């Protein structure tokens, strides 16, 4: 019987598990969350307003399917390896420490499988803004999580800003848990939106019903929705007291003279998503793209460039939960050994192909534009873990990324550049372009040195360890943990 391991239990991972089980595989799911659902399904029955829940019935189906799988929740997976299939059989070996991160000895879990589905999802991404380290500023994802899971609002008067349709459900959730949402500021302008969508982003595609519902919610709660607009400064001494918003040009550069202050006590920022590529990179799967967005390369069957390794969901392109569900199903079926033309894949393939077009439109319409760095001050903190300001990064921009990080400590703190990596790269790229004459390492920044050994463009994602782990947890069990069906 084929053993399939699934890394991540969001929509993509759950759909993969369900499909692999349906195809007769033995399935093990590892997920860092306390319970399955990922970033998308984190509501609690009885606590979360039903209007914030999407696809709950589907989630319940997926959860009941999981009864046939071994599920490790609260699993910090710190390594994934491909081994020669042989003696003990398994081609993929995953190692995890399972239990609360701050608890006493976590359980060592080793999973061997014949195939792996990487469904590690994405972090939500907030670009640095002067004042963004003030208490009261959160990512849009964090605001959404607090609202959905705990029924709590990040503020009484909350401003939502960034880019992409994700801002809409966040605003709706905040309103439902009692916050006044003083505005939703979408950085993209009409031109970009028209290129991707129609002028009104909710009038489109298979998403239209859902988006129309958000539009209705915004209108009901009298939430102003502005396009070509963004927060360029957060105001306050001890915590957020207001925010400066400005019109942004097509490159997201603030238009001088358009600034105005909006009184608020919380700001939720969401400028997009950063896929969590570390496991794929550790396995040697090919990753494509540049600093504006890197994704795992997959074929029509969601296969990566490594044998027996599949990927689904946001790690292959930001497309939302429906795309993730379809990709997960395809990956699960294929990992379990079904052929690409097996009729059980047909429905998922159709949805996936439509959603890929949706994802392309999403990037065209809302992708981060390079002008955003214009709203930074020299002393704006970029790397929050190590308190590294923009000035320090610019001063060292001429040396290769790795040397710059060691010199400034940008990206070396506990989050290991998961928050600031993309911003740091953008600032370095801009500094190198503006420092005419200083061509040092010029190529390194746009990723064209990736052919060089240890090349720069995967620097932040290339981690020999996938998760923080205690030294004492690295030893321990070397044989697969028993209990796999």
């Amino acid at each position, binding site marked *: 019987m084929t053993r399939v391991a699934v890394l991540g239990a969001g929509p993509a991972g759950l759909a993969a598990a369900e499909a692999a089980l349906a195809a007769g595989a033995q399935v093990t799911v590892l997920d860092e969350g306390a319970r399955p659902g990922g970033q998308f399904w984190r509501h609690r029955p009885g606590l979360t307003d039903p209007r914030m829940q999407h696809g709950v019935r589907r989630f319940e189906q997926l959860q009941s399917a999981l009864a046939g799988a071994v599920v490790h929740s609260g699993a910090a997976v710190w390594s994934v*390896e491909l081994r020669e299939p042989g003696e003990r059989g398994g081609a993929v070996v995953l190692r995890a420490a399972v239990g609360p991160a701050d608890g006493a000895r976590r359980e060592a879990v080793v999973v061997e499988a014949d195939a792996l589905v990487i469904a590690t999802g994405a972090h939500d991404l907030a670009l640095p803004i002067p004042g963004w380290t003030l208490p009261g500023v959160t990512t849009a994802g964090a605001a959404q999580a607090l609202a959905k899971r705990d029924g709590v609002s990040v503020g009484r008067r909350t401003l939502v800003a960034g880019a992409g349709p994700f801002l809409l459900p966040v605003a709706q959730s905040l309103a439902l848990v009692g916050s006044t949402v003083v505005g939703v500021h979408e950085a993209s302008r009409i031109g970009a939106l028209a290129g991707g969508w129609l002028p009104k982003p909710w009038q489109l595609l298979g998403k239209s019903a859902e988006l129309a519902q958000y539009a209705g919610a915004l209108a009901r709660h009298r939430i102003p929705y502005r396009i070509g607009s963004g927060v360029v400064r957060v105001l306050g001494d001890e915590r957020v007291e207001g925010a400066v918003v400005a019109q942004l040009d097509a490159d997201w550069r603030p238009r001088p003279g358009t600034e105005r202050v909006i009184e608020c006590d919380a700001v939720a920022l969401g400028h997009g998503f950063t896929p969590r590529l570390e496991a794929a990179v550790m396995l040697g799967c090919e990753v494509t793209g540049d600093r504006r967005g890197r994704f795992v390369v997959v074929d029509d069957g969601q296969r990566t460039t490594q044998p027996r390794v599949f990927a689904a969901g946001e790690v292959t392109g930001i497309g939302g939960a429906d795309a993730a569900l379809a990709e997960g199903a395809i990956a699960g079926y294929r990992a379990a050994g079904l052929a690409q033309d097996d009729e059980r894949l047909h429905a998922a393939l159709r949805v996936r192909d439509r959603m890929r077009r949706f994802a392309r439109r999403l990037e065209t319409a809302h992708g981060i534009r390079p002008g955003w760095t214009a709203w930074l001050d020299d002393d704006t903190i970029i790397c929050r873990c190590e308190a590294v300001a923009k000035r*320090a990064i610019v001063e060292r921009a001429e040396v290769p990324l790795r*040397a710059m990080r060691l010199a400034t400590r940008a990206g070396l703190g*506990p989050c290991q550049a998961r928050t600031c990596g993309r911003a740091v790269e953008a600032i370095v790229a801009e500094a190198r372009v503006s420092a005419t004459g200083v061509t040092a390492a010029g190529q390194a920044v746009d990723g064209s040195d990736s052919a060089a*050994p240890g090349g720069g463009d995967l620097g932040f994602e290339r981690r020999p360890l996938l998760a923080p782990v205690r030294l004492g947890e690295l030893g321990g069990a070397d044989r697969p943990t028993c209990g796999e069906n």
Partner: protein
Amino acid sequence: MRIAVIGAGVVGAACALELAERGAEVVLVDRVGIAAETSSRCEGNLLVSDKAPGPEADLAIHSNARWRALADRLDAERTGGQPETEFEAKGGVVVAFPGGEEALRRFAAAQRGIGIRAEELDAERLLAAEPHLSPEVALAIHYPDDAQLQPSNTTQALAAAAVRHGARLVVAEVTGSRAEAGRIAAIETTAGAIEVDAVVNCAGPWAGELGRRLGAPLDIRPRRGVILVTTPMPQRVFHKVYDADYVGAVGSGDAALQTSTVVESTPGGTVLIGSSRERVGFDEHPGVDPVRAIAAKATRLFPFLEETILLRSYFGFRPYAPDHLPVIGEDPRVGGLFHATGHEGAGIGLAPATAELVAHAVLGAPTSLDPVPFLPGRPGIGVAA
């Protein structure tokens, strides 16, 4: 004299500074930039404690003395956003577990014979020096001259100092060379040709390939080393502390994974634990075996590390020659071509003395070191890896 120094790691940057200060017109060439590879992927060890009597120990002792003044100077001359070298003369403590005492005692006695300070610590002094060390340790030797610095920052500082002395940085890959009358007259790069009177090959683990492109292949190979970094904590490790089995691993030609554990604190509060050694070519996927092996040995030295969280790990490639001795001096086949590579895990420590030997070879500058043991003409070096 126009000199191209190829490779902007610690050895190339030190050579560029030494040659520029002596009046040469220096071009520092690197395909990525300053400190892009090995020198940003290592520990910054300035060790005399791991050297058995011989030519490399002489180089290490000489270099160790030079680093003290050099690091002071680099820190004093710092400009702009340039980082500090974080030089720290913290000393080393080498320990043996039961059964290993005699070997370590003999090793230390031989080192004392060539002037390395190596003092046996009794139980009381050891407790004072390293209170968190495992009680299982049977013997500890204190090496006051061992030191540490931040290797990437220091390389950046050396390169900046070289530039202040007139050196020029060119980011380009060297593709070949042009000879006139049996001597190198120019190097060809992806950014065009550069006319030169001499070339110094400081390409570290890539020195063999660069040598081939310049018509002089070298048997220099990469050896992969993995290093672990913990989350910051109050200081509980005060020296460079390592197990005496490190000494065996450095000199070994064995291809299989070897580990020895050097544990130390950094100014940032993290604990650095290195290192493994594997001959696996330029393989970029170390997997977990080295990490697990290093962790097991580190927790044996310092049991408190069991509960310490690893923040990250990284790896780099160290250049080594088949006889484990650095390769420094003029190539016997191509006039005007010099090599400075093969330092394995000791390049940071040996950089100043290496630069001195290069200045001696290229410019005839004086040195008290014996260059002969390191010359590229020795058997087994001048062939492709």
